[in-house]
């Protein structure tokens, strides 16, 4: 019988470590002036430096160093007074130089931490994730494996290389072992990557688009029997590229290793790949023969020695911490915890804030972005702001608060704007969606409704206020839903002497 997750966590405790690679959003590459556009035609962004042609010399991108220092500061790291680049030597065609310029024993940032919060059975709980190091390196080229039976690298007939990505600045953020996560290891891993992504986004140092690979996570996991005090053999699941996948990868690896151990098999120290469809992992390269990268200091680059003045200038530019910002906005908007989490999880915090900053009511801004608009966006698998702009939503909310639109009409305006019928004003004109606010027009509809149901009207006159509902309904129907129901109610009750 195989163990499920609940059974696995009863027997084993996890040792978790995470390595996150983040592509910086500099305009040019790490060591040369080639552009870094995503999705450019193959090999249109290369030069002698990033192709590793003889005689070319790298020069470090200043902004890349500054971005890395900012990341270090945001993660409470010490910025090393002396830092160097090193060559990581290996033979693989994704790097035409036959080495990757990286950092080895002298990384630029060390000893930081990030606190993350998750929901546990005993309420929300904070975990401290210690950061061992943050270092600079360069991304590799993209390979396409052609032929063979599986479309994978194994047994392919040949491979095609595009070096546009080779040399794009990459920052690697490595945690220490995250202790005592127990059964919450998957959630802690996810919360860590999510918090990290929020911080990086706030720093504006990366696009942090996991689906495009500008943020990827390697999950290191080993298991040991509870209270055995022994460390197990770890596996490293590479390039997990969504928050959900990070959580699933830890979960899947936990179950796989637990089952192997239970049946007396050993865990092989190896690199594994995450499979989106099944949530499981499959083996990649075996690391049993320890890799020998023969690191040595990069002779073509000089040391990076950031002085205090430079570091302090950068520190001054640090934005508000995402967790602080969240608390501040939650208070300002008076939003309950649960709804604030919903905004954050939907990644709509920036959008709602922008809408509020334009002058919209926070509650309305939240309910439109998370309600109707998110619903349509989910149906079409796009992000809400790809459908409609913050400005348009602000205008629609303003029109509602001015009584020019009802919620029902506003939904039609949103629909029209999304359908490309123009601005909210255009849609209102084209579809004739203006609220009937002309009292005389409304009064006519009210009198018609009373005439059609005199007994109901009498009941209202007699003090049965709820009976007015039916009359209001017929007025709304007569005006094609374009009347403001509250206003109709007010006029109707007044007319019937209530």
């Amino acid at each position: 019988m195989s163990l499920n997750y609940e059974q696995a966590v009863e027997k084993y405790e996890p040792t978790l470590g995470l390595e996150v690679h983040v592509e910086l959003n500099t305009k040019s590459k790490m060591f040369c002036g080639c552009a870094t556009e995503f999705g450019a035609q193959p090999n249109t962004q290369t030069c002698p430096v990033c192709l590793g042609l003889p005689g070319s010399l790298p020069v470090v991108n200043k902004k890349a160093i500054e971005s890395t220092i900012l990341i270090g500061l945001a993660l409470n790291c010490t910025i090393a007074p002396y830092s160097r680049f090193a060559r990581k030597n290996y033979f693989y065609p994704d790097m035409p130089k036959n080495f990757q310029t990286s950092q080895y024993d002298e990384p630029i940032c060390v000893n930081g931490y990030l606190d993350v919060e998750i929901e546990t059975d005993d309420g929300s709980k904070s975990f401290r994730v210690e950061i061992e190091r943050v270092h600079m390196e360069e991304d590799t080229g993209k390979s396409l494996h052609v032929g063979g039976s599986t479309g994978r690298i194994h047994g392919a007939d040949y491979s095609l290389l595009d070096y546009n990505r080779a040399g794009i600045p990459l920052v690697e953020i490595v945690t220490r072992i995250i202790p005592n996560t127990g059964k919450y290891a998957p959630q802690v891993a996810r919360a860590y990557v999510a918090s990290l992504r929020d911080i990086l986004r706030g720093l504006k140092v990366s696009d942090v688009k996991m689906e495009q690979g500008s943020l990827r996570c390697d999950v290191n996991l080993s298991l040991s029997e509870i209270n055995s005090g022994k460390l197990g053999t770890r596996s490293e699941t590479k390039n997990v590229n969504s928050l959900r996948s990070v959580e699933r990868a830890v979960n899947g690896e936990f179950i796989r290793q637990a089952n192997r151990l239970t049946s007396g098999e050993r865990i092989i120290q190896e690199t594994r790949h995450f499979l989106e469809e099944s949530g499981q992992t499959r083996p990649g390269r075996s690391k049993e023969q320890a890799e020998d990268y023969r690191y040595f200091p990069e002779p073509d680059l000089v040391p990076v020695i950031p002085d205090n003045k430079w570091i302090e200038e950068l520190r001054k530019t640090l934005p508000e911490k995402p967790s602080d910002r969240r608390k501040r906005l939650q208070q300002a908007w008076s939003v309950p915890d649960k709804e604030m989490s919903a905004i954050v999880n939907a990644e709509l915090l920036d959008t709602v804030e922008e809408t509020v900053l334009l002058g919209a009511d926070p509650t309305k801004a939240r309910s439109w972005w998370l309600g109707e608009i998110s619903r349509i966006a989910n149906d079409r698998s796009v992000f809400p702001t790809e459908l409609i702009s913050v400005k348009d939503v602000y205008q629609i909310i303003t029109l509602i608060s001015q009584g020019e639109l009802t919620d029902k009409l506003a939904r039609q305006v949103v629909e029209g704007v999304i359908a490309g019928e123009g601005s909210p004003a255009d849609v209102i004109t084209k579809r004739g969606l203006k609220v009937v606010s002309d009292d005389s027009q409304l009064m006519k509809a009210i009198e018609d409704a009373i005439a059609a149901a005199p007994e109901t009207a009498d009941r209202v006159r007699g003090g049965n206020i709820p009976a007015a509902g039916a009359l209001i309904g017929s007025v709304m129907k007569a005006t094609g839903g374009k009347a403001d129901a509250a206003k109709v109610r007010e006029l109707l009750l007044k007319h019937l002497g209530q």
Partner: protein
Amino acid sequence: MSAISRDEVANLARLARISMSDAELDHLATEMDVILGAVARVQEVAGKDVPPTSHPLEVSNVVREDQVVPSLTPSEALSGAPASHEQRFKVPQILGEE
């Protein structure tokens, strides 16, 4: 005792993907040992107060501004490639079947 063994030289050759005959390995092991011996003498001269150096010049923080400069055209980039296909560098099979 020699500073580098024949086995270590063989391992380096393997890592560097250089195929070597037994005679070449014997020869190189001896030769590299002499070179390392010479380096070791420099190490003796350098006191504890002399930090190891990776660069002959006392310079640091040489950086460039984050500005894009024109790249090579794809045909220029691929001009030295032994083979190319669909504007990409074409390389032989990397790994065989599992």
